[in-house]
């Protein structure tokens, strides 16, 4: 690896497009593969037609964003390719989804990709290399197992519960799953192309609904992108309020997940209590901004709603009650042998596998990886208020559950500290025009893990391209691997222990 291949930047910062190194594809490959094998993560890999960056140019620009957790550095490198290039995936598994996406959207061929099938079954983009009929959703090859006592189970897209659609194909031998293949795309709404040309009056609403249960995480990441491009500085008060809201979102979802895990093993007390307490946290978000999902809370430049002394006092009082409730409700899980028997040693994803797949969030931390954007790439309030990272080593359902339990405690502590000493000052500001011909990268630790937004602006400062990487994009393959050699009846439990987003993946 040649370090001079990369341009480095910090989370939330921008860099001129002319500063991004443009190397040949062989150097690009070597640099990315070398960096990932040295422990960096592929946070984003995507293609943009050259003519969007330079009207006269032909071909496509491949851009890679690498994240180095050790010192909080992001690096960018790019290469121009025509219609095909040697795939990175054979030497860098973290690229597998990104390269399928690049192929599906732009018709670029990553030669040598071992399983180049549709990712979202979306139509090619208008500027793609070559045309192709829009694929039919779900029609594709699946891995097949042959032999006696082998059978295949197909589930979805419509599932049994109130849940988003996706297709799961299990290759089973008796009760045991040899391989699970997950085929998504049913939720594809075209969020990324809808963002191109923005920001406009719809932009924030696309961002807030690209994964509705992560409204605050994605809105935060988006706000950071445009603030970086506008050169705006967010007030300390707005930063603290953003942090409080983001941790409330984490609390609501972690609590809901622990309840759902309890429900999946038939332990109803915790299931019933946690379902309700999740709502108590959502109602605290609504106390701040009127919406249980945080719609309108984070706005470019600051926050949409202030909180005075009385509102904060009510927030803290209700937080105390919710803390007591959530702790007694979830403590029952760890004390109940029948629950532990189902959680422990189920759906193990080893540390090595977590690293190879590039997993993020609680799934990675449950497998022993020290990886949390709030600690590694802190921005906003997280630069000043440190949240201790919750890391376990077992990589099983228990670890993924217990990491959430630890994070619940730490998020409550964080909110208490921040709300108890809110800095004075304004909460918002009008942003100036966005910088032209720049690239911005923004990372946020959402409740599922790293949210990455990357945008490139054109000569007018509009979005020439907008790339969203939801944590689910990295983690779906982790779920598939967790199911290897597991009884198929453990699928709901493993699935819930990841609780990934369909719409965040499908965009």
């Amino acid at each position: 690896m040649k370090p001079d291949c990369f341009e480095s930047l910090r989370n939330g910062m921008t860099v001129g497009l002319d500063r991004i190194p443009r190397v040949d594809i062989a150097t690009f490959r070597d640099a990315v593969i070398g960096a990932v094998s040295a422990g960096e993560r592929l946070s984003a890999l995507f293609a943009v037609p050259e003519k969007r960056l330079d009207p006269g140019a032909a071909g496509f620009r491949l851009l890679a964003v690498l994240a180095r957790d050790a010192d909080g550095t992001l690096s960018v490198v790019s290469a121009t390719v025509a219609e095909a290039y040697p795939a990175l995936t054979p030497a860098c598994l973290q690229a597998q989804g990104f390269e399928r996406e690049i192929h599906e959207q732009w018709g670029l061929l990553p030669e040598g990709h071992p399983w180049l099938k549709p990712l979202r079954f979306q139509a090619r983009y208008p500027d793609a290399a070559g045309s192709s009929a829009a694929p039919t959703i779900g029609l594709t090859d699946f891995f097949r197992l042959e032999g006696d006592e082998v059978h295949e189970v197909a589930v979805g897209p419509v599932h049994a519960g109130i849940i988003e659609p996706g297709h799961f194909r299990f290759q089973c031998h008796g009760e045991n799953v040899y391989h699970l293949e997950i085929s998504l795309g049913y939720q594809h709404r075209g969020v990324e192309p809808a963002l191109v040309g923005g920001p406009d009056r719809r932009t924030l609403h696309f961002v807030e609904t690209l994964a509705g249960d992560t409204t605050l995480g994605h809105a935060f990441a988006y706000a950071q992108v445009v603030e970086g491009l506008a050169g705006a500085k967010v007030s300390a008060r707005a930063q603290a309020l953003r942090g409080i809201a983001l941790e409330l979102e984490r609390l609501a979802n972690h609590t809901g997940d622990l309840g759902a895990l309890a429900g999946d093993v038939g332990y109803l007390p915790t299931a019933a209590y946690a379902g309700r307490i999740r709502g108590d946290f959502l109602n605290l978000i609504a106390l701040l901004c009127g919406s249980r999902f945080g719609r309108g809370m984070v706005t470019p430049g600051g926050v949409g709603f202030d909180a005075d002394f009385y509102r904060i006092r009510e927030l803290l009082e209700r937080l105390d009650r919710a803390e007591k409730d959530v702790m007694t409700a979830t403590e029952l899980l760890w004390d109940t042998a029948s629950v532990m028997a189902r959680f422990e040693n189920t759906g193990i994803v080893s540390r090595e596998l977590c690293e190879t797949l590039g997993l993020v969030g609680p799934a990675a931390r449950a497998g022993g990886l020290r990886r949390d954007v709030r600690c590694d790439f802190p921005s906003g309030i997280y630069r000043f208020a440190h949240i201790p990272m919750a890391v376990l080593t077992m990589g099983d359902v228990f670890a993924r559950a217990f990491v959430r339990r630890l994070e619940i405690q730490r998020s409550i502590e964080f909110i208490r500290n921040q709300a108890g000493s809110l800095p004075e000052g304004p909460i918002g500001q009008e942003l100036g025009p966005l910088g032209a011909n720049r690239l911005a990268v923004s990372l946020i630790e959402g409740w599922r893990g790293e949210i990455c937004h990357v945008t490139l602006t054109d000569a007018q400062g509009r979005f020439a391209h907008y790339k969203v990487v939801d944590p689910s994009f990295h983690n779906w393959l982790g779920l598939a691997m967790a199911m290897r050699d597991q009884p198929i009846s453990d699928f709901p439990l493993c699935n819930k222990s990841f609780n990934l987003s369909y719409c965040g993946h499908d965009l």
Partner: protein
Amino acid sequence: MLLNIVRARLQQKHRTMPFPSASAPVLPDRFRGLPELDVGKCSPDCRACAEACPTGAVTTRPKLTMDLGRCLFCADCAKACPHGAIRFSNQYRLAATRREDLCYDGSMHRLARALDCEARRLFGRSLKLRQVSAGGCNACEADVNVLNTPVFDLGRFGIQFVASPRHADGLLITGPVTRNMLEALKKTWEAVPAPKLVILAGACAIAGGPYRDRPEVLNGATDLFPVNLFVPGCPPHPLTILDGLLRLLGQLA
């Protein structure tokens, strides 16, 4: 061990809301429900609200009207209005029977009517619904799911979400209906035995929400099936959904 379970049970208390026999819980003061329109404040050529609306829900000619089916309740219109003619109230009762009833000019919002006698005889005391997310962002889905928690306890009204369309009396659809979900949604609808109901929850399912007119979606399910209940919101508050369901079944006066 057992003592812990009993202690936890006592601490968690009885939390099911008395609604609808007593009044609904107080919603947060910043909750954005039914808008209040003060048309008298509008100046003739002002279109600030319509220009700010992300979904084209607001029109100013011939007079200020809001399509609650398209509305995201973001209040961008209220913020843009220089005259203070739009204010979002705390009123959560929003569900309507007909699509056109969601076009609201500030005078009267026509709430959902009960099903006819025969349909109420069939569904009034036992309604089984199959939920289909067709591109929903998981916010509508989550706040439908909440109705199953002890707080709302949907079961006490005889309403239940079931795992198979064959066991269902109707569909509750969320999401703008992506092209990739169209076939699965139609097949699910066909699998529900007649007579059947269709309920649309959220701005996406009613009119496409923020994704309206994007090529990847079909602007919701309003034109795909005969619809019995429209529940506006982005997402609708659980109380809004519950209120709509109970009105549909004639369980609310």
